[in-house]
């Protein structure tokens, strides 16, 4: 019995030694294996809009109700009793847009705003409704609310609109703060 027990113990020890030997061999021979994955990030230049000139409806004689429309390409259309006077010429607002070459961007303009009388002969406060704003992207060569940056990442954006002058509008200098934002499509 003793011999038998000794034999079992010896066998167990041999097995442990064998396992340890194999494990040690695996670690010793365990070379490092490596794989490589690419890392990518596409970074886009931020859009910049630089105002070059304001949207001007010019000097308008508006004794009777009328409208003045300035297109983004610079054409001026009069309707009703509105008449343009000589002097400060009407014209669209002009912006230089800069950003990532070739990308499209969306122009956000409010549907309508109020032109507020800032200066002129004494009169009560007055406002004029302005709206129907439209944009023209030189690079996209299209009117609408989507522009495109050229291969250098630049575009010229012009914006026109319509101002409504009701009858009896007090004479004066009316100004509009027109918030224009651009964002990548």
């Amino acid at each position, binding site marked *: 019995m003793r011999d038998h027990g000794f034999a079992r113990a010896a066998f167990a020890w041999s097995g442990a030694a064998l396992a340890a030997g194999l*494990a040690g061999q695996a670690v010793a021979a365990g070379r*490092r*294996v490596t794989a490589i994955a*690419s*890392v*990518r990030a*596409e970074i*886009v230049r931020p859009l910049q809009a630089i105002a070059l000139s304001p949207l001007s409806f010019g000097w308008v004689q508006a004794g009777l109700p009328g409208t003045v429309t300035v297109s983004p390409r610079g054409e001026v259309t009069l309707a009703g009793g509105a008449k343009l006077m000589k002097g400060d010429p009407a014209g669209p607002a002009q912006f230089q847009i800069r950003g990532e070459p070739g990308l499209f961007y969306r122009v956000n303009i409010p549907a309508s705003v109020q032109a507020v009388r800032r200066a002129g002969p004494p009169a009560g406060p007055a406002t004029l409704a302005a709206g129907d704003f439209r944009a023209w992207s030189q690079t996209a060569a299209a009117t609408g609310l989507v522009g495109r940056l050229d291969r250098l990442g630049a575009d010229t954006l012009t914006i026109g609109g319509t101002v409504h002058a009701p009858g009896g509008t007090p004479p004066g200098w009316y100004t509009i703060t027109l918030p224009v934002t651009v964002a990548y499509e």
Partner: protein
Amino acid sequence: MPGAVLLLVAAFAAPSAGLLSAPAPVRAPAERQLQVERLQSLSFGVFVAPGEGSVTVPPSGLDVAYEHVFPMRGSPSGAVFQIKGKPRQAVEVQLPGQIETRSGAAHAVLHAFKAEAEYRTGFEAVGPNAYRVELDASGRNLLHVGGRLDLRGGTPQSGVNADLWLSARALDDGAAR
């Protein structure tokens, strides 16, 4: 009777030759070596960077954090590596500490790499950028790796491209453990 012995050998040799020409029906199982392969790249996506900022992509690729940059399109994703070896084998995995890429004055720093194992038994961090990973019963595991991208000193033009390495080393012999 030497002649009789010779005849006997010839009788056994003929069918053996026939068997050798047939396709081998059984092949001894090969010892499986530790292997790592890349299944998916690490992508920080497309974003607008007005200046310095950072993007952190978790290993899952979900809940990406943006600081001072604005995501545009495409979805960021973590890298995925497959580790193959022996069943239940313990493996030590090492990721880089930091990778830098430069573009003029601007440079991008990739760091804080983190890994998650799909088979989580025995998975633990064992040091800076090092993990202990255990392979499953079929000798496989998938590692998802995320990290953080810092933009410093301006915005690198044309984006960031780099190599993310992952190295693995067997800690034991798997089933023999």
